[in-house]
């Protein structure tokens, strides 16, 4: 049993090492963002896409056309008037603004990215399987994999620790206060 759990623990840890490191690093950035500000700089790109003129009246189809051109993103906002159509599309780290005028056969896509540190920050916040961009739903499955994997790493690690008599006593001295105080804080803050 110990050998099996040790292999599961090793395999999970190795498979998820990069994902968990990115989660840890981006959390570190969020908690100490003053130290990373110099690395976060806006960069803009603008492209024109040829689209059918009637896309002006079909914003969701326009978003799909933008995605098909390789500029993917989740459609988060549609602003429409008689003179212009503006779509906001988001990927983790990149915000796209798609604008189109009535009667024109083109849409302008302006993309803003703030670099890899910011992208990791946004990846940390992205989750869920409800997105209209299939790539973000794929990411949602990856988040689920990392989350379940992290819990399994904890469970297998705890089991292996318990079987190692040498580390049990000091481990208990660390685990019991941390778990009791932590759980108490979770309950107390919720109750107040």
């Amino acid at each position: 049993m110990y050998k099996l759990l040790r292999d599961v623990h090793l395999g999970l840890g190795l498979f998820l090492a990069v994902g968990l490191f990115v989660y840890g690093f981006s959390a570190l950035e969020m908690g100490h963002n003053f130290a990373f500000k110099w690395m976060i700089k806006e960069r803009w790109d603008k492209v024109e896409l040829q689209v059918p003129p009637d896309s002006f009246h079909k914003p969701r189809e326009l978003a799909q056309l933008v995605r098909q051109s390789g500029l993917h993103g989740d459609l988060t906002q549609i602003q429409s008037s008689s003179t212009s159509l503006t779509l906001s599309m988001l990927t983790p780290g990149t915000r796209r603004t798609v604008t189109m005028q009535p009667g024109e056969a083109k849409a302008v896509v302006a993309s803003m990215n703030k670099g890899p540190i910011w992208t990791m920050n946004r990846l940390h916040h992205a989750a869920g399987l409800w997105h209209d961009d299939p790539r973000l739903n794929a990411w949602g499955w990856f988040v689920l994999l990392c989350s379940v994997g992290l819990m399994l790493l904890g469970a297998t690690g705890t089991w292996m620790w318990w079987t190692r008599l040498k580390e049990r006593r000091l481990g208990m001295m660390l685990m019991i206060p941390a778990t009791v105080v932590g759980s108490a804080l979770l309950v107390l803050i919720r109750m107040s």
Partner: protein
Amino acid sequence: MTELVKKLHIYSGVAFGLALFLFGVVGVYATFAGSPREAPPVQGLRRVVDYTVDPNFTDPQLARAVFDHLNIPHVAPVPDYALARNDAGELRLDFYGPNGRTRVWVQEKANKLEVIEERNDLGHYLINMHASLLLHAPRTFAVMLWSAYVELSIFALLGFVISGLYLWLATRRQLRWAQVTFVLGSVGSIAIMVWVT
């Protein structure tokens, strides 16, 4: 050296296991919680409190005075950039904490405070708690203590990855299946991150 790293790996695991378990639970919850844009609005609990406004106060001073007067548990003061007034001239104060938002309208002419408490559900409470970091946390003892624990858990998570890789390389690096797993996982993780961004 290997024995020392192994002990650090084990002891930090048992010490920070609760926070890491919470990180996992929050990830699972966030996967199935649905779109925040389609979530029903949180129903607020409304109450009115008597309060006499000092006419000499600036908006930031008034915000601080209301914060001290209401003494809402585990919320942060309203930063100056978030102060706003409605068309009727009432100052709006949004106090955020792990349990949700408390919105206060300062009705200066009536000498009243309209307090609307929007308490979030358990899932969003846990999301807020997993993201509770010292830099942004409300300055109450319980939240600060919890935030310190979360902050240390983040370092522990990074430490697990590094020490885990070290232990693998130091003791079991010849395992072919482990090498394949590491390469597959790393390439797959980086590929999906690049593809999704």
